[in-house]
């Protein structure tokens, strides 16, 4: 099975080889394990981009292959980030608090420890007790389980409700957008139990690795993100190939016809929606320790729309297209907004790219939709066609 699957999809092997080479090159050029050509912050940017690629291929499967334009997948990404962030914050604060209480004459009770940790974490929103949301925050394995369970369950319930009542097309897009908006508005409250708009911070400090410099940690996370992306790629390539893949694509092309052929469309859609949500959660859990901070603004509806933009620019319906779109748009975005692009002097007016980048992106997005519906991936197909 495995051999035939890879034989059917040579692009998967190509992708894995390229990903491995990329990781190797970055490691060799990094400060921690190599010549120091790449700064730690740039290594982190690359690691974060890999995580974004992971959620982008998830988005590609749900939209490009299954035809569900979800405008809420960043909600799952954010939930994954919050889940890992809770453990990171708890464990780190516990270490600090335990050290500061250790020189007392009478050893602290567990209640005293809890209270001290809670007031340390929640003092900023004026609370001093752990909300029920944090029940499992002390345990890494349980919290890792949450990364899979919470986005999965949310997607399952939401998808079941939506698909069961045959909400499709633009309606579903709006509904998923409403979902992520509701979640971000909820998290913006100070009494949400997740520190309101302060979010969770200091996530780049990994408990148990206090002595390890950030340059090394950044490489660890780059490896982790690359591994997750590689595994995710293989998983999704397997899902969209074979008979199941055909059904999923058929649902995209004509849902009614597939239903009349006797397939249970809702189950397939629910499976794809939930699976991609779980992968999005994993991507978020790898992303935010590299970003260092997560707050509710991260899961505002606009983020999920950008996700759709990456996939569309890269070209839907091909996994490497999603990766290409993400890499091109995020790196170009940081190049333009970071002041990397030179200003264009038009004589009467000077175009500063920090101000004009979004205008350029917006219009180029319109152009891509109009003239290159196959996106960047379509160009690759054309090259291949020319070669063959």
């Amino acid at each position, binding site marked *: 099975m495995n051999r035939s699957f890879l034989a059917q999809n040579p692009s998967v092997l190509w992708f894995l080889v390229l990903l491995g080479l990329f990781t190797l090159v970055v490691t060799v050029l990094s400060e921690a394990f190599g010549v120091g050509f790449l700064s730690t912050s740039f290594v982190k940017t690359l690691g974060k981009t890999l995580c974004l690629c992971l959620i982008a291929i998830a988005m590609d499967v749900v939209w490009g292959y299954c*035809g569900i334009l979800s405008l809420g997948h960043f909600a799952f990404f954010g939930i994954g980030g919050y889940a890992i962030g809770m453990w990171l914050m708890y464990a780190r604060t516990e270490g600090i608090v335990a050290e500061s209480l250790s020189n007392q*004459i009478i050893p602290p009770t567990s209640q005293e420890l809890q209270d001290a940790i809670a007031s340390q974490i929640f003092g900023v929103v004026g609370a001093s007790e752990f909300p029920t949301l944090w029940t499992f925050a002390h345990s890494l394995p349980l919290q890792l389980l949450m990364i899979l369970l919470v986005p999965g369950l949310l997607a399952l319930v939401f998808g079941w409700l939506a698909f069961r009542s045959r909400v499709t097309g*633009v*309606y579903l897009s709006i509904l998923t957008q409403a*979902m992520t*908006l509701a979640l971000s*508005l909820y998290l913006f409250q100070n009494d949400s139990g997740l520190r309101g708009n302060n979010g969770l911070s200091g996530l780049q400090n990994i408990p148990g690795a206090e002595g390890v410099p950030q340059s090394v940690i950044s490489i660890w996370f780059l490896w982790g993100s690359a591994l997750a992306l590689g595994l995710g790629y293989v998983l999704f390539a397997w899902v969209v190939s074979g008979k199941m893949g055909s059904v999923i694509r058929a649902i995209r092309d004509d849902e009614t016809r597939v239903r009349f052929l006797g397939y249970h469309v809702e189950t397939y859609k629910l499976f794809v929606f939930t699976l991609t949500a779980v992968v999005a959660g994993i991507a978020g859990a790898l992303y935010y320790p590299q970003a260092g901070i997560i707050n509710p603004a991260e899961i505002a509806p606009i983020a999920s729309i950008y996700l759709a933009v990456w996939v569309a620019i890269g070209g839907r319906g091909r996994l490497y297209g999603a990766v290409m779109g993400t890499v091109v748009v995020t790196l170009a975005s940081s190049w333009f907004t970071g002041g990397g692009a030179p200003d264009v002097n038009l004589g009467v007016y000077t175009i500063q790219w920090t101000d004009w980048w979004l205008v350029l992106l917006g219009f180029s997005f*319109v152009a891509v*939709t109009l003239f290159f519906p196959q996106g960047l991936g379509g160009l690759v197909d054309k090259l291949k066609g020319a070669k063959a």
Partner: protein
Amino acid sequence: MLRAFLALLLLTGLTAQPGHAQEANLQDLLQEHQAQIIKPSRTKVGPAIEALASSGLPSVPLFLEKWRDKNVYVAEDGLFYVVAGGTATDVSTGEPVSGVDADTLDPIRPNGGVRRVINEALVEFQLSDPDITRRTEAVDAISRNLDPSQVEPLSKAIENETNAALKLRKQRLLNYLAARYGETTEARIDAIKALKDDLSVDGRAVLSQILATSTEAAPNLPEDENIARVLEPGTDISRADAYAMIEDKADLPPVLSASEIRTALEANVEGAKVAGVSVGTLTTQDARAAAYDRLAATGAVAPRATEDTIGETLAAWTIYDVYDEDDTAVTEAARDTQNAVNTRVGVSQTADLALDAISLASIYFLAAIGLAITFGVMGVINMAHGEFIMMGAYTGYVVQQIIPNYTLSLVVALPLAFIVTFAAGVAMERLVIRHLYTRPLETLLATFGISIALQQLAKNIFGTQARPLTSPSWLDGNWAINDVISISYIRVAIFVLALIFLGLLLFILKKTRLGLEVRAVTQNPRMAASMGINPDKIKMMTFGLGSGIAGIAGVAIGLYAKVTSEMGADYIVQSFMTVVVGGVGNVWGTLAGATMIGTLQKGIEWFNPSNTLAAQTYMILFIILFIQFRPKGIVALKGRAAGD
């Protein structure tokens, strides 16, 4: 020369003479009561102030103010002067007096009691002041701080009050005073009952002040006090608070917090042991409490209240609320009246809430109706709709920069905003959307691209700070129906605008050729085309119309909120939901959707007023659930028109 001399004479005569006459009068009067004024005492100053007040001199109030503020000085010859800015001035005219050095004068410093007497006299003057703003100020001052001494001046000032509204206020105020400080129980009860129809904050405050209670603890319920209610520890009052009250009275041992116990134990550690126990074992709160009790038994620390003592004490004592007011009849009347008032306030608040909801609904309606039309006709969601709203608002702003008259600029801005966004909408339809009719999901993304580009363009042109769109002065202020129900005129205007658009759209869709064609294309574009309708033209016109209405909505929204490049984004999701909830392609559906979302949001906010974020969250959750039951919205197209 002669003329100049005459003019001079006239001038000095005009200015000096009346002042001179007054000066003589007030100064003479002051001289009569010289002793009481120079060294006033609270008990003896009465006749002097009475004489001043009854003299009817116009300069008396000002003098009293200066006297109170310690600005009146006395010279060695006994004459009084007001010192302002280091120079001596005349007591009645306030003009500098030559030949008197301010430094040689002695200040007069009335004490607090005297100043209060002066104040009372002043209130009386202000209440009858010819200037209505000063009279209003005096009434405001009294209502801020009710005091029995105000009864008399107030009742005197009612008769001669010419302004009807102010007279009513004065009578109300007198009634408040009577309710709180009336001499007989009957008079107070009558006054309290008269408050039944008064929904104002002041009136309600009077009632709650009469019903003010304080919490007491006693072994037995006292019989001679006006008891409001008995409190049950644990439900009405926390056990800790209840015990703390009794602890003070009965000299019981205090309840110690965990940290207090810990500090006490730490102070008594001897060789890693406390009360015979190793400190290493004190890792639970129970172990620490036990160790503390053992320490207390040896007398090393003061005993603490255990859970048992607290229980016993609470069982033996009664905690109750007692009215500050002693008279049972008064408090009962006040409570009855308060209940009646609260019912009426509740009804009014519901009405006020309904008004708020309608106003919010009309904003959503305006923002969403354009979206609904384009969505209905083309099955296309325009993500740039919010940016058309913004464009309309900025058009209004630019017009106001050119035409400074706010009314005129509004009259110009409304049609201009329509034209600008109509043109933008038609351009967008021709250039982009036309090519994507077969790919509706991609329209969503292409229009999103336009949306971010337009937003950033607006930011580049107008900057990131909010721009004001000032409403004309006749739209300022509130329309107050009673003390609780009020709504700002801008919101009324937006409501009217929404009504106009509802009517206009219904007219266009039902009574014109264009409307007929639009409805035909909505229901079945191919069939419409075969009947000779050009769907391309209709789609272009509809898109322009929908965008134009967004522009007008932008002006309306800009009037009561600020104009920013992100204002469209704030409304877009609500607009989507209005359309989705209401049902597509139907004006009534959008109306129903807007009404439902507006009412829902205000209703949830009412349950949880401090938290509008939570209200929005719950509203969205509700909508997500609602869609489960009516996936095609409240007003769904039926039959073949519904399509897929």
